[in-house]
């Protein structure tokens, strides 16, 4: 348990250390490179701002209406039976469809329950171990005009399902 905590704390400083030392050894003008890269990150974030506004507004509306509670209310018995936190259900489905829409739902959970609650931690781990399957799959296959994808979708769904189940187990183990 402590080792996982340790990896979490050391990871980013370690990545920074390796990048800086390697950059110095290779005589890269590291600060100039950093600025150039940071500018790119800046543009990326500004680029997602309109998407985020649209999505958070839509989620704000559906949440305030009470419809989301009604839908999850219907699924509560099934979730209880499976030991799955029902508030995380819409996010889990959305995660496979759209990365930006799932971020909206993720932030909604952080807002209501807090990122350090059990469910906040569970969805954080779950988001880091799953992918937007449908978008990426169609992008890659369409780029080379493949129409018969064999077992790719099945494999992607099973791998992501394994990620969700593993996250739930890990969250139960570490944070319950």
């Amino acid at each position, binding site marked *: 348990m402590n080792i996982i*905590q340790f990896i979490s704390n050391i990871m980013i400083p370690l990545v920074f250390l390796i990048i800086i030392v390697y950059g110095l050894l290779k005589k890269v003008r590291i600060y100039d490179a950093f600025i150039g890269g940071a500018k790119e990150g800046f543009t990326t974030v500004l680029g997602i701002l309109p998407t985020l506004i649209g999505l958070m507004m839509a989620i704000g509306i559906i949440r305030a209406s*009470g419809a989301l509670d009604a839908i999850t209310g219907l699924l509560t018995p099934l979730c209880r039976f499976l030991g799955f936190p029902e508030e995380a259900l819409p996010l889990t489905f959305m995660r496979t469809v759209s990365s930006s*829409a799932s971020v909206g739902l993720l932030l909604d959970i952080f807002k209501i329950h807090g990122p350090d609650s059990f469910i906040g931690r569970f969805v954080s781990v779950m988001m880091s171990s799953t992918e937007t399957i449908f978008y990426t799959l169609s992008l890659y296959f369409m780029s080379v005009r493949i129409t018969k994808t064999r*077992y790719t979708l099945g494999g992607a769904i099973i791998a992501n399902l394994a990620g969700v189940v593993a996250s739930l187990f890990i969250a139960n183990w570490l944070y319950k």
Partner: protein
Amino acid sequence: MLNYIWASFILIGIIYALVAGNIEGLTTAALDSAAEAVGLCVRMLGIMSMWTGMMRIAEESGLIKALSKALQPALGKLFPGLMKHGAEGGRAMEHISTNVIANILGLGWAATPPGIKAMEELQAINPDKSTASREMCMFLIVNLSSLQLVSINIIAYRAQYASVNPQEIIGPGILATLVSTGVGIIFAKIMEKKVFK
């Protein structure tokens, strides 16, 4: 698809609120959420730019290239048939390892171009141009199983919502990612045996 999801959120919200009598809070909710998105992006600007800045150093120093070279022997086990295809197979392998490294480092924008290049090279050696080859299936399942070690954006969101220890999910995230990728690889290997006899 997103068009319909977005529309249905708003329409279901408004209609349900009318029926259930919750309409009075809807305007405030819409306005507050829109404003909150901006506040969030301000913090994201700092964290994302820091990350992409560091990663640019790694690119320019050749660190990312060195890592993808180091990865190639391991990837050879996932794509045993690839090296038999000469130059095209080799190029495909290079693109695949760059894509995997970029994914591991959480550089989605840097992972897509080599990913598409890899698909093109794999298509060049694919005997049936309309059907996914064995290598394509493996590549995409691994790719879609989530490879990311550090989800910097999740950490940024957690920080924005006042988490005491935003990075505490890195270790658990790595563990869960190993499980999902492991299951994906095992599934792909089993299916390979069934489909490509």
